[in-house]
Structure formats: structure tokens, C-alpha cells
């Protein structure tokens, strides 16, 4: 017997009617927990769809404040939210969409001190961070804790997505061993980003989460999907686990979390 109310059965009826999901799949979503790092360009669409889909408990980590320049793509937030903490704004929007979802709000940055405790509480992690140091910290922590991580990145007209089963499938470092030198990769604030590209990638991340939680289809493990909006093309690249990977290889050189502390010129100025 499923622990879904009449209202929930009606709300999720277009899921439940899918034979691959059904009542049991919807129940699995209700019993699941997902952590989304960042409530910005990628976090916004991911959180909207995960909330609407009825994931039982969703964590949001975000320490920034809603800025007018965010609104072109960060669709969780609206004009009256400018100046408000993004974590609070995100939570309010999510509650309006689906009051059945329990929301954990972390108005803080992810650090090597807090990351393990926070990750432990969730089944699947979604990466929507805005900088390379946190991206590598998150990858390494997920490998060490054997967590499932859905990687995502965007820049200009391009996007990237990759699903990682920590310690089992190719991780971010298997593909990108070290962060790029500071200042070489422009940020979205410097190079721009088409807002809808964030929507495509964040929605793909949510799709991967929902598939993994319900056991539907084939996750994007050991594959890297690059999206080129100008050509409207997806380019898939197979990614094997790298035996020389510094974190998940045969002889890992990284056995404790490292937090890259360089003053990254690529980070967006807080405006």
C-alpha cells in the first residue's frame, strides 16, 4: 500500500500513469532526499522540477542574495525577491509549488569542514555551484563518501552534464584532473550565459535524479554530455574511470579533502 494521500495521487497522476513510475515509483520519490548545491542558474530549474515531482526532502545550500542580474536565468526568484537571501527565496517558491515537500535550508557555503555531515543526509547530490574550488571539493567528497553526484556546468551557449556514482564510475577528476589555472576560464558574469541554457542543463540534472531515484532507464554514468545551444547539438563523450585519477584512481594522492584557496579571478563579483 502506498503512503500517498488522495491529493498527492491526483497531483502526481501524470507520473503515476507512467508504467515505469507508477504508485511505487512515486512512493520512492516521496521517501527520497536530494541535496542541491546552489539555488542559482542550475539549481533553480533543478529545484523547481524536483519539488514539483514530489521528492520527499530537498536540501538547498546557498549563501548569496538575489541580485537583479540573476533574474534573467535564476527562475526560482522573482523581482520582489531582489535583496532577499536566495535560500529563503528558494524555499518560499518551493513551498508554493508543493507543500508536501520538506525543505532543509542551509544558508551557508559548502566547506571541507561541513561537507561530509551535510552530504550524509541525502541520497543524491546535484552540483549547481559557481566556482571550481567548490566543484572539486564536492566531487572529492562524493567519491570518498560513495555518493551519487549529478554534475552540471554552463557558460555562454554551452552546457555540460555528467552523472557520477562516487567510487564506481568516472568522476569529474577522471575527466578534468585539476582545476584550470585561476583566471583562464571566464565566469558567466564575465563571458555571459544564455539564460535558457541554464534551464536545459538544470532540467537534465533533475531528470537524472528522478531516473536514478526510481531506477528508470540508464543514468549518464561514464558519459559526459556537452550541449551546444548555438548549433543545438548534444555531443556525448564516453568517460572511463582513470586509473591515475588523483581521487578515485588505484593509488589516489588525494585521501583527505582539499579546498583550493586561490583567489579565483573567474568568480563573479558580488554586485
Amino acid at each position, binding site marked *: 500500500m502506498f503512503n500517498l494521500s488522495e491529493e498527492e495521487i491526483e497531483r502526481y497522476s501524470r507520473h503515476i500513469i507512467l508504467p515505469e513510475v507508477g504508485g511505487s515509483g512515486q512512493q520512492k520519490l516521496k521517501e527520497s532526499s536530494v541535496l542541491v548545491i*546552489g*539555488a*542559482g*542558474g*542550475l*539549481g533553480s530549474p533543478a529545484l523547481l522540477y524536483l519539488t514539483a515531482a514530489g521528492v520527499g526532502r530537498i536540501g538547498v545550500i*546557498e549563501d*548569496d542574495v538575489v541580485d537583479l542580474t540573476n533574474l534573467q536565468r535564476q527562475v526560482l526568484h522573482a523581482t520582489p525577491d531582489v535583496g532577499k537571501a536566495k535560500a529563503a527565496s528558494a524555499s518560499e517558491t518551493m513551498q508554493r509549488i508543493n507543500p508536501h515537500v520538506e525543505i532543509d535550508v542551509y544558508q551557508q557555503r559548502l566547506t571541507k569542514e561541513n561537507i561530509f555531515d551535510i552530504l550524509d543526509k541525502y541520497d543524491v547530490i546535484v*552540483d*549547481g*555551484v*559557481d*566556482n*571550481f574550488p567548490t*566543484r572539486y571539493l564536492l566531487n572529492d567528497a562524493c567519491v570518498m563518501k560513495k555518493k551519487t553526484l549529478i554534475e*552540471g*556546468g*554552463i*557558460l555562454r551557449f*554551452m*552546457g*555540460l552534464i555528467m552523472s557520477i556514482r562516487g567510487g564506481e564510475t568516472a568522476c569529474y577528476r*577522471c*575527466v*578534468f*584532473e*585539476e582545476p*584550470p*589555472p585561476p583566471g*583562464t*576560464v571566464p*565566469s*558567466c*558574469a564575465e563571458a555571459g*550565459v544564455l539564460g535558457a541554457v*541554464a534551464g536545459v542543463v538544470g532540467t537534465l540534472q533533475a531528470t537524472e535524479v528522478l531516473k536514478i531515484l526510481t531506477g528508470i532507464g540508464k543514468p549518464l554514468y561514464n558519459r*559526459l554530455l*556537452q550541449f551546444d545551444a548555438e548549433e543545438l547539438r548534444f*555531443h556525448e*563523450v*564516453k*568517460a*572511463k574511470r*582513470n586509473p*591515475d585519477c588523483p581521487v578515485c584512481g588505484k593509488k589516489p594522492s588525494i585521501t583527505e579533502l582539499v579546498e583550493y584557496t586561490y583567489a579565483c579571478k*573567474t*568568480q*563573479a563579483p558580488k554586485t
Partner: protein
Amino acid sequence: MAAGGKISGKGPELLKLGSGQARPGLPLNLIVQGKKQAYSGPPDVRSLLEAQGENSAYVNIRINGQIMVRRDFENISLCEGDRVDFLYFMGGGNV
């Protein structure tokens, strides 16, 4: 060096990954990002990236299925028929 392969005997030692032969004076036929392309520049990876207008600081590369290590780019030689994919660093997400 992460990759295995043949080391050429002439000039700077370049690591070859593909089975195709170099063709002195003739362009190399490559498959770059899934598209066939004749490339006539110097046969190392960094030169190919520059010719494609890519900055090697923010692109990683995969040749015939094998992901390369960035610091080795100058030492990797391209061969006839190599399949080259670019993997872009994208840090954005929350900005």
C-alpha cells in the same frame, strides 16, 4: 603520462596514440568533435587547439577514446584518422 603509445624517433619526442601514419606535407584527416576535418598545422595537440580557436587552458581533450592530461598536450602527436573530442571546463552554474 597517463596514456600509453608509440614514441616517435624524430625531433621532439611526441606520443602517438592512433594507429594511423603521419603523412609529411599532407594534411591529417581527423574527426574533430564528430566532424571530418583536414588539418595541416603542426601535429601536436596544443597546435590543433590553437588552430581551432580554443584556449588549451580551459579545454581538455580526448583522443580515440582516451582522455589526455593537460600538461602533456605539447607532447601528444596526432595521427591520420584520429578522433578528437574537446571537453570544456564550465564553472558556471550559480553565478
